[in-house]
């Protein structure tokens, strides 16, 4: 009995650990998407942030400098996205994919040039990492708590502030916001910058909290899973958080189910277990979500009438 209990707690702790970057990324993506800017580049921002976090932490010996560098790196990419999509009204999906490709290549090239380890950063230890606060076994570093707090924060900003109201309006009917004398571009830029902030934190979590160093393509598609979580959550912070946790739980259980004989079923093949998150995606999208309700102006560049 006691063993089962510890197993349940351990699985829940693993769920939180795995879900943290997804939650941070999803909250960031929400701000951007609510304002009408689709962000396929979450993955790239997170990857770039992860690299700069590890590189800076390794060079300065301070994890906090790493967090700062991660945010800065993600913000640069966010501004690039904003410049392409808001100022120049480019295609948002194309810009996002370009950012992903840029990050994939640039991190490895810079890493190889600076550290000579084939794109990896040196392994980090001690103060170069964000270490657990209360429960060393569970791995509860500060960014896990930041991720948990980011959900009520996103809800409060989007649902309860004047900025949030305008943000929602600009994602639905930008013309009305413009007619009210509020700058569409400036609102959207602020949303994109908020997105960069959270994506930066997610990247820092990957390389200096969850792991001890950057390795090539370490985001492994998590930015896209966060994007899926936003869609599941119908562009609402709390349901999106739930979707992230569901993905995390599935991943954590999958890890623990490997090689375990289940009563009545026997040993489940590894391949099936690893396909579970994707099966869930299909199942939920087809069965539960139904028609999704994206912000009306998402993906549509706003052209001011003259």
């Amino acid at each position, binding site marked *: 009995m006691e063993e089962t209990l*510890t197993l349940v707690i351990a699985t829940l702790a*693993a769920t939180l*650990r795995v879900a943290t970057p997804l939650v941070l990324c999803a909250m960031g993506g929400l701000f951007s998407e609510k304002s009408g800017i689709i962000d396929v580049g979450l993955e790239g921002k997170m990857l770039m942030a992860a690299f700069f976090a590890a590189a800076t932490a390794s060079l300065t010996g301070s994890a906090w400098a790493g967090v700062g560098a991660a945010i800065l790196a993600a913000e640069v990419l966010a501004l690039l996205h904003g410049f392409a999509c808001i100022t120049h009204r480019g295609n948002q999906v194309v810009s996002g994919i370009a950012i992903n490709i840029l990050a994939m290549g640039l991190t490895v090239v810079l890493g190889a040039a600076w550290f000579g380890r084939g794109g990896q950063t040196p392994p980090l230890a001690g103060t170069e990492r964000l270490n657990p606060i209360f429960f060393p076994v569970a791995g509860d570093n500060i960014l896990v708590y930041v991720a948990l707090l980011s959900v009520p924060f996103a809800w409060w900003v989007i649902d309860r502030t004047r900025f949030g109201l305008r943000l929602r309006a600009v994602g639905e009917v930008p013309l009305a916001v413009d007619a009210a004398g509020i700058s569409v571009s400036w609102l959207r830029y602020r949303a994109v910058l908020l997105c960069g902030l959270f994506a930066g934190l997610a990247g820092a979590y990957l390389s200096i909290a969850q792991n001890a160093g950057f390795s090539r393509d370490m985001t492994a598609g998590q930015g896209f899973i966060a994007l899926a979580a936003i869609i599941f959550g119908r562009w609402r912070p709390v349901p999106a958080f739930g979707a992230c946790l569901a993905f995390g739980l599935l991943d954590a259980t999958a890890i*623990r189910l*490997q090689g375990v004989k289940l009563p009545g079923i026997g040993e489940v093949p590894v*391949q099936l277990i690893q396909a579970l998150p994707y099966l869930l995606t299909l199942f939920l999208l087809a069965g539960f979500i139904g028609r999704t309700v994206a912000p009306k102006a998402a993906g549509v560049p706003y052209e001011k009438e003259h």
Partner: protein
Amino acid sequence: MKRWVGSLISVLAAVGLGTLAQAQTVAIKPAVVFSTGGKFDKSFNEGVSQGAERFKKETNIAVAEFEPSNETQFEQALRRFAQRGQDPIIAVGFAQAVALAKVAREFPNIHFTVIDSVVDLPNVQSVVFKEQEGSFLVGVLAAMASKTGKIGFVGGMDIPLVRRFQCGFEQGIKYASPSAELITNMTGTTPAAWNDPGRGAELAKGQFDRGVDVVYAAAGSTGLGILQATKDRGKLGIGVDSNQNHLHPGNMLTSMLKRVDLAAYNSFKAARSNEWKGGVQVLGLKEGGVDWALDKDNEKLITPQMKAAVEAAKAAIISGQIVVHDYMSNNSCKS
């Protein structure tokens, strides 16, 4: 008549040159194409790299290198090296076998060495290891070091080669402690599984949560995450391929050495002294191809009893008293 004399002379000349060259070294342009784990995986690829470095230092001959970023680049890289006249060319890892077979057919005069796979061509030298024997030894150590009687194995990509590590490890554990339990995880089913330290760390933590206190990481770069998690939780880890004891002294029980460095070094060396031969080399404990690592980083963790037991097992395997079953002989861990 004239033509016949001409060819006789050229044959004689070739024989003469051949014997002459055997006595001295020949100029070579060696090259290595690494596997997707990358040159600095602190493990398999890095071992090859160390062998190449040693050759470079001793002979002052430059070794061309290529680190592919995905599997589709193997063939291009091998072909480009062959076109540039690099010879011999080492292809690191089983995943290159298909590409190598194709390129080796196109360039029958270039010598290739493939590590961890067998390609049956006259100009290819295949080097494979009896990983099951080295894994058996570290299994003995793991069983003796474990306090909970639960031992973990985290493999990289789920392929027979990795199962061979796992199977040898399991046999070693059962040999030392029949009641011990082994929990096995594989990181994934694609080559990306060699390069996913985050997932490796989660798998290891999942095993620790189930009571495991010694974990064997046979997963390339993914292993770095596994061993980091091992250190974070204060458990014992076992490294693979290269000696990884230095990664986390005090938390590294030992490493299963696979002397890919020797394989690379010997291949270059043989080519230089014109003694390079094709065919298959199988390197086990007897040939010094695999072993366990004991150095200053882990000597405190290895008790005299453990050392005696593992050395006894080693001697028994070499003499043939213990036969370690090879997973790849029947695709099953049961003989």
